[in-house]
């Protein structure tokens, strides 16, 4: 049985600058896996390459055993990978409801309305203001909408890029609780975070990325205990 997602020796370059060099990791079905590392380590680039927005210079990305790194972004969503990008990137001039409908853009089944109600249940504030423009919401509310929107395609793998960025500690906690809840509902999650402490505490497995390479990996709790990780990342963040 092959892992849900496997990244092998991935390198990505912007022109002459190599942002990611030789990253490898795997995500097993049902896990929460986090990629941690400092700013500019190449985490976001990795996610953007998996979702097809960027092309690798070399290396392979396998989803359910099948190479996907030559597929266009819109086709990759259809395979079951949903990506909630850094900075949330909502459609600010559209309503909450329209944002969620776009999340379900590729779905042809009639369960869309039911799933939308489920998002409103999970985040009642969205339900109350479903006809308001997304650009008018606070940072935390926008993050909820971004996660909700990413859930609407019913992905097998949900990739979240910096979901806690710019949020208050209380809101951060709420977002991480939600992530845990999504896992219990059967979604596999690949998490990119600068908030390494919170991310690792939540994760089944973690990878430390530094200057575009994977330098360390292990189960979330053992990385949390690792002195090198504590020195390099945890001290900085909190």
């Amino acid at each position, binding site marked *: 049985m092959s892992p849900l997602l496997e990244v092998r020796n991935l390198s990505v370059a*912007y*022109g*002459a600058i190599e942002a990611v060099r030789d990253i490898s990791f795997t995500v097993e079905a049902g896990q929460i896996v986090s990629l941690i590392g400092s700013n500019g380590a190449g985490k976001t680039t990795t996610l953007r390459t998996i979702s097809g927005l*960027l*092309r690798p210079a070399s290396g392979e990305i396998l989803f359910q055993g099948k190479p996907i790194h*030559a597929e266009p972004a819109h086709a990759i969503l259809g395979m079951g990978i949903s990506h909630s990008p850094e900075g949330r990137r909502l459609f600010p001039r559209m309503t909450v409801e329209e944002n969620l409908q776009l999340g379900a853009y590729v779905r042809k089944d009639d369960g869309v309305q039911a799933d939308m109600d489920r998002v409103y249940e999970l985040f009642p504030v969205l339900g109350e203001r479903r006809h308001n423009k997304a650009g008018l919401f606070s940072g935390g509310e926008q993050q909820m909408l971004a996660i909700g929107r990413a859930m609407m395609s019913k992905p097998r793998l949900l990739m979240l890029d910096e979901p806690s960025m710019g949020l208050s500690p209380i809101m951060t906690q709420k977002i991480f609780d939600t992530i845990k809840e999504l896992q219990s509902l059967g979604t596999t999650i690949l998490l990119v975070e600068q908030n390494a402490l919170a991310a690792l505490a939540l994760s089944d497995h973690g990878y430390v990325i530094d200057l575009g390479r994977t330098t360390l990996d292990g189960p979330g709790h053992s990385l949390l205990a690792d002195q090198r990780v504590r020195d390099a990342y945890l001290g900085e963040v909190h």
Partner: protein
Amino acid sequence: MSTVAISEKRSALAPLGKPLAIAGGVLAVVAALLPWVTFSLNDGNWPDKSTLQFFDAPFLVTGFRWHMLLFGVFILVAALAPTPSRGRVLRALGWGTLAVSFINALYITIKGGGLGAITALDGEVAFGGVVGVVAGVLVILASYGIGIEPVADWKFKVSTPVAYLVLLVAFGGVLYAVAAMLTTGGVGASNPYAGAIFLSFLGFAGGVLAALSGVGLVRWISALSEEHRVFSVIVLAACALLLPFTDAGNEYWMTVAANIGIYAATAIGLNIVVGLAGLLDLGYVAFMGIGALVAANFSGAATAYFGFSLPFPVAAAIAAVVAGIFGAIVGSPTLRVRGDYLAIVTLAFGEIFTRSAQNDIGGFTNGSNAIPGIPALSLFGAEFNRSITIGPVKLPGGVLYYILIVLLVAATMAVFANLKFSRIGRAWIAIREDEDAARAMGIRTGKMKILAFLIGAMLAGLAGAVFAHKNGTVSYESFKFLESITLLAAVILGGMGSIPGAVLGASLLFVLPEKLRDFEEYRLMIFGLALILIMRFRPVGLIPDAHRRAEMAEKADENAEEAHVEARKA
């Protein structure tokens, strides 16, 4: 994904690279020595004794067959001798071979009324064209087998005298090429095959030039000329002044060359606005029109607004100043409007100019009757449009205009070059690259952008003043939208921000119509198609500016997208 496709193609062809190139080279030589046409065409024999019946001396090749022979030899040399960036050189030579063969074969087929003309007819065989095309294709395939490496970078330094010598030889070569380009195929309709001969020559010149560029020579020489800028400009001007003494030294070509020069000077002015400051101007020719109208009104022509005439230098200065003032006015919206919105403002201004001039606004333009009878310039009693005799040498008519315009072009080049490497030029380039960053660095962007418009417009106004006297008539018809687009195309075709590029672009766009009278009907259509193809395949132009080249190459998807996001956040 395209890189994958190319590497796969290479792997299939890789072992065959060298043999294919050798085979192609041999075939090119063979093609040169074969007859190309099976019978005499209605308009006369195909040039250079390539018609079977007149094919008496196979080894005394001239014209396009000589070009084919040279290509064959070059290909063999490139394939066998140690050549830097061999694949790139072979690709250029292959395309050149293909172009020359294909152009000749196509013309023969059309004029001869069928493929029989270039293959076999009534038991006669003439396979030169077919063999040539095959040779070209083989060499192109071979080049991909060998692989297209980056252009070689020649590191070695030379002493100043050697550099001067190299530059002299190089510019001499350019002079020869220009004279040959003008005279091949003869003048206008005198030779029924003039168009084909010219296109074939262009294929040859293009192939050789691209090969030299591939081997790194062109880059090296342009670096040398940048290092010895003053010397280069002098030599270039001297070469240009020698043109009347070559085969091109007759009244017809002097007139054409002078017209090209006027547009080249204007194109250099436009290059300041578009190439350096990055401001797209779609109504630029209006400034040339303003200059021409001012000069015409001060010329003493019968329908001029003012009843007196001013000496040309004074009139030209006024023309430049007036055009410059309009330039500053048109440029002033740049304080608030950016990018393609600015392009629309300039287009609107151009249209206002055309429409006002057409309706004789203020009595300055004489509307659609134009201002005719502008006197020719004269110096010490010698009228510029007459031929002159200095001792034993008789120079053709129009030569004085030609000289004046060479000086004008040299002067605009000098202005451009000095600005480009000055503080102002660096400010413009900074604005072009990133206006907000430029402002953050303390550049007064508004002032700089208006200055770009002002200087560009002044140069155009000056060129317009010369235009008025040289042509004797000024009509709004000469300054319409299409002329603006043609000038812009000249700048882009040559290479934005590059001086030789603007001159080359203007030359090509204004020589081609002279040469391709066969295609008169299709001229503009081909022009439109050419714009599309250039943007698709070589957006940096024929002679790219060094900075610009780097910028265009790195403007990949991502940067554009990131810029997009930034703009959205702002």
